[in-house]
C-alpha cells in the first residue's frame, strides 16, 4: 500500500476518457462497434485496495471512496473534460462576495428505500460535518473549508454559507457524499460519536440505503461486495445489472484471475504484468495518474544536524545526480513520467508544465559540490561541516519493490558525487519524521509518495507551516509560501488562482523539500466480456465520476 492521500479528499481525476479514447496504450480484444447495447450482466472487478468500511466517516481506502461515489449522491462530479458536471445539483451560482453558494438540486429524487431525497438531506450532511469537524468528522474537514452552515430553502434549493471566499468550493463538494437524513440523524445526535460506530452494512433483506446508481446488497471486507442497480436513482440507469468488487490481497492472483476469466477487470495492474496481459489479448489502458514518488530532503527550520542539506546548492547538486530516465526505465518499466512539481500532470491545467526537471548531469553535480569546498575523503565520500556526507534515507514499507530499485539507482549515482546513502526501512515513518513534538529533527532524507486530489488545494496545504505534524512529511515551513497558499485559497477568479498556484509550485520546486522522481501511470485492464469503461486518473472505478459504471455494458 502506498501512502495514498486519505480522508474525504481521495477524489481527483484527470483525463476522463472514454474507453478507446485517449489511453496511451491499448490492446483491444473486444470493442462494441456501434451495435445495440445489451443490458444486464454481472461485472466482476478485482480490488487490491478493498472497501475498509461502508461508513463514509470511517473508510479511508480508495475503493471505499469509489463505493461512496456510486451509492451516494454528490452535488457535482467531473466530466470528460475535467470540468464540473451536474450530479445531485443541476446548477449552481454564488453571491458576488463568494460567501453564499446556491445549488439547485434534482427534483422528485428518492432514496433506494423510497423515501424522498431532497436538499434537506444535503443540508443535514454538511451541517453534521461542520458541527463535528474537530472530532468525529475531522477526516472530512478539508471538504468543508470555511463553510459556516448549509440551508435547504426548499426541496430543491441548497444554500451553503462561507466565512470567507473559498476558491475550491466545487472541488470540495465533489468529495462529499450526501447521506440519507432519515437513516443517519439518530447517529448525529449528542456528541456525534455514534456516527463512527454505525457499520452501515446491508443485511440479507435490506441493502444499504442508497441514492446513487447502485446499492450495496452484500458487503464483505475481505471478500466480494455486491453492487445492485438502484431502481430509484435519479440519473441515467446503468446498463449492467450488478457489479461484484472482489478483494485480492495478492496482485499476482488478480492478474491470473483476469487471464483465466475468473474476473472481468482489474483496477490497478502492476507494471511487470502489463506485457503478460497484453500477450493474453486483454485490453490494457495506461494513462496519467495522480500518484508520484518523492525524494524528500528534511527542510525543518528546527533541524540542526547536517546543515549542509539546507543549502540550496547542495539540493540542486542532488537533483543533477538523479537519473529519472533510468528510474522510470528500470524501476517502473517505462510506466511513469519524469517528475517536477508537487501538483501532478493528472491535475490537468493546475499542473505547471513550464517547470522542467534538471537534467541528469553528474559532472555538474560534482562541480557544485566542489565549489562548496566539500572535498572527498580517502574513501571517496565528501566531507561537509567536518563530517562525511553520509545520510540515511527513511524508506517506508509502501515503497518496497520498485522503490527499492529506484533507491539503488540513486545510491549508485550519489556514490559518484561523493555522497553515501544508506537505505533505512522503517515502520511508522510519519511518527519518526515528525518527532520530537512535530519539529522534524531526527532525520535527513526519505523516499515516499503522494496521491493528491485533482484540485491542488490539498497538496499545496501539505507544504504549509500549519501542516507540520499533520500532513507534512518534509518539515517545510516558509511564511512566503504560506501567504501564497492562503491567497490561492481565496482567489475565486480562476485565472488569478492559476497564477498563484503556479507561483507556489515554482517556490517548492526551487526550494526542493522534494525532488519529485516520477509521476506514475495508472494501468487498468479488462477482458472482452464488457466494454464502455470510462477511464480517469483513478482508473475506471474511482471517486470522480459515476459515468464509468453507468456506461459499461456487455460486449
Amino acid at each position, binding site marked *: 500500500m502506498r501512502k495514498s492521500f486519505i480522508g474525504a479528499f481521495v477524489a481527483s481525476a484527470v483525463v476522463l476518457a472514454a474507453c478507446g479514447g485517449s489511453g496511451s496504450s491499448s490492446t483491444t480484444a473486444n470493442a462494441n462497434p456501434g451495435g445495440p447495447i445489451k443490458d444486464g450482466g454481472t461485472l466482476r472487478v478485482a480490488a487490491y485496495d478493498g472497501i475498509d*468500511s461502508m*461508513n463514509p466517516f470511517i473508510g479511508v481506502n480508495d475503493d471505499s471512496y469509489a463505493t461512496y461515489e456510486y451509492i451516494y449522491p454528490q452535488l457535482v462530479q467531473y466530466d470528460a473534460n475535467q470540468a464540473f458536471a451536474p450530479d445531485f445539483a443541476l446548477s449552481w451560482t454564488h453571491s458576488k462576495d463568494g460567501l453564499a453558494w446556491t445549488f439547485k438540486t434534482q427534483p422528485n429524487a428518492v432514496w433506494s428505500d423510497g423515501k424522498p431525497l431532497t436538499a434537506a438531506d444535503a443540508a443535514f450532511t454538511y451541517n453534521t460535518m461542520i458541527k463535528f469537524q474537530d*472530532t468525529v468528522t*475531522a477526516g472530512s474537514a478539508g471538504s468543508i473549508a470555511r463553510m459556516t452552515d448549509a440551508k435547504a430553502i426548499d426541496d430543491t434549493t441548497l444554500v451553503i454559507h462561507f466565512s470567507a471566499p473559498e476558491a475550491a468550493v466545487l472541488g470540495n463538494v465533489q468529495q462529499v457524499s450526501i447521506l440519507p437524513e432519515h437513516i443517519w440523524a439518530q447517529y448525529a445526535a449528542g456528541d456525534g460519536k455514534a456516527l463512527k*460506530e454505525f457499520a452501515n452494512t446491508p443485511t440479507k433483506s435490506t441493502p444499504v440505503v442508497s441514492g446513487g446508481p447502485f446499492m450495496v446488497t452484500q458487503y*464483505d471486507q475481505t471478500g466480494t461486495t455486491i453492487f445492485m442497480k438502484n431502481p430509484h436513482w435519479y440519473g441515467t440507469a446503468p446498463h449492467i445489472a450488478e457489479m461484484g468488487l472482489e478483494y485480492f*490481497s495478492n496482485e499476482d*492472483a488478480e492478474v491470473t484471475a483476469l487471464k483465466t476469466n475468473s474476473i472481468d477487470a482489474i483496477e490497478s495492474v502492476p507494471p511487470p504484468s502489463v506485457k503478460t496481459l497484453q500477450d493474453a489479448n486483454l485490453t490494457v489502458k495506461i494513462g496519467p495518474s495522480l500518484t508520484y514518488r518523492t525524494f524528500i530532503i528534511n527542510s525543518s527550520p528546527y533541524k540542526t544536524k547536517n546543515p549542509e542539506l539546507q543549502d540550496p546548492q547542495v539540493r540542486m547538486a542532488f537533483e543533477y545526480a538523479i537519473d529519472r530516465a533510468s528510474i522510470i526505465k528500470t524501476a517502473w518499466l517505462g510506466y511513469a513520467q519524469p517528475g517536477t512539481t508537487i501538483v501532478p500532470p493528472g491535475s490537468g491545467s493546475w499542473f505547471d508544465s513550464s517547470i522542467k526537471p534538471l537534467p541528469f548531469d553528474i559532472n555538474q553535480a560534482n562541480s557544485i559540490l566542489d565549489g562548496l569546498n566539500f572535498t572527498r575523503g580517502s574513501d571517496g565520500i565528501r566531507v561537509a561541516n567536518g563530517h562525511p556526507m553520509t545520510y540515511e534515507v527513511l524508506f517506508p514499507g509502501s515503497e518496497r519493490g520498485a522503490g527499492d530499485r529506484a533507491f539503488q539507482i540513486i545510491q549508485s549515482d550519489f556514490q559518484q558525487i561523493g555522497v553515501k546513502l544508506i537505505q533505512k526501512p522503517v515502520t511508522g515513518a510519519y*511518527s519518526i519524521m515528525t518527532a520530537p513534538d512535530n519539529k522534524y529533527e531526527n532525520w535527513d532524507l526519505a523516499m515516499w509518495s503522494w496521491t493528491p486530489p485533482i484540485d491542488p488545494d490539498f497538496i499545496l496545504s501539505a507544504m504549509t507551516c500549519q501542516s507540520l505534524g499533520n500532513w507534512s512529511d518534509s518539515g517545510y515551513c516558509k511564511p512566503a509560501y504560506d501567504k501564497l497558499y492562503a491567497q490561492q485559497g481565496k482567489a475565486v477568479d480562476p485565472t488569478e488562482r492559476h497564477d498563484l498556484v503556479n507561483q507556489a509550485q515554482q517556490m517548492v520546486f526551487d526550494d526542493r523539500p522534494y525532488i519529485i522522481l516520477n509521476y506514475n501511470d495508472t494501468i487498468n485492464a479488462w477482458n472482452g466480456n464488457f466494454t464502455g469503461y470510462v477511464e480517469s486518473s483513478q482508473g475506471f472505478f474511482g471517486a470522480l465520476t459515476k459515468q464509468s459504471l453507468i456506461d459499461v455494458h456487455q460486449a
Partner: protein
Amino acid sequence: MAVRGTDYVLKRLFFAGITVFVAVTINFVLFRLLPGSAVSNLARVPHASAALKAELTREFGLDKPMWQQYVIYLGQLAHLHMGVSWVSDSHQPVWTYLRGKLANTIPMAALGTAVAIVIGIGSGVVSAWRRGSKTDHVSTNVAIAFYAFPTQWLALMLLILFAGVLPVNGMHDPFLAADVGGWTRFLDTMRHMILPSLAFALTLYGEFTLIVRSAMLETLGEDYVLTARAKGLSSWGVVRTHATRNAMLPTTTLIALSLGYIVAGAILIETVFTWPGIGLATYQAVVSQDYPVLQGAFLVLTISVVFFNLLADLLYFKLDPRISA
C-alpha cells in the same frame, strides 16, 4: 504413580501459564515500542486540530500512562476482552473479529495438516522401510525440497498452475444464486479450500516425512525389531506392528507443535489466496498498524503454540512409559 502424574501435569500447566504471561507482557511492550500509533495515522487530516488528536488518543486509551494501559490490558484479557480494532469496520471488538477469522482458518489449516500427516507418515514409513532404494531417494529428496521451499513461493506456484481450474481467491463464489442449497455452498467452499489447504499440506509434509523416516530407522535398528524378525514375522508386519508404533513418539510431538503454528503458517498462505482467516487479518493489521488486532493475533498464536506444546508433553507422558515410570 498417580501423584507423580498429577505433579507432572501441574508442573506443565504452571510453566505453560508462566509462558503465556511472559508472552502477553512482551506482546504489550513490543507493539508500543514501535513508532507511531493509529492516532498518528488517523489524525493525518488537513489542519488536524489538537482537539482531534486528543480525542482519538482518549478514544483508544493512549492518553493513560503505560503501566495503566498494561493493567487495563491484563484486566481486559482476564475477561477475554482484547480491546477494539483501531481500523477494522466500525471498530469491532478484537476477539469478535478474530474469532470469525479463526473459524475460517481452522477448517482450511486442519485439512492441510491432516493431508500432510497422512502423506508425511506414509512416505516416511515407506522411505525407512525401503531405505537406500530409489523410492527412498526420490521420496526423501522431494520431501527436502518441499521442506525448503518458501511457503509463499509454493503457494504462488500452485496459484499459477491451477488458476482457471480451481478457485484461487477467497472462500466462496459470491455470485452463487441465493437459492442454491447448503450442499452446493459446502462444495463451493471445499473447492475454494483445495489450493490453500494443498499449500499448507505441501509446506508441512516434508518435515513429517523426514522425522518419521528418521524415527523409523532408529526403531528398525532396535533389538526387539530383530527379535520380531527372528520370530519369523513378515517385513511389513514388523514395520506396521513394532516399528511404526514406536516411531510415532517423535511424530506426535512434531504434529502437536505443527498444529501450534497453524496461525503463523496461515499468514503467508492466506495472503496469497485471500483466504479471509486470521493470517490475512494479521497481515492487514500489520499494514494498518492496528495494534489491538496484532496483539490479539499474537496472543492467539502464543496460546496455540503453548497449548499444543502442553498437549505434546501430556501425550508423551501418556504414550511413553519411560517418562511416567
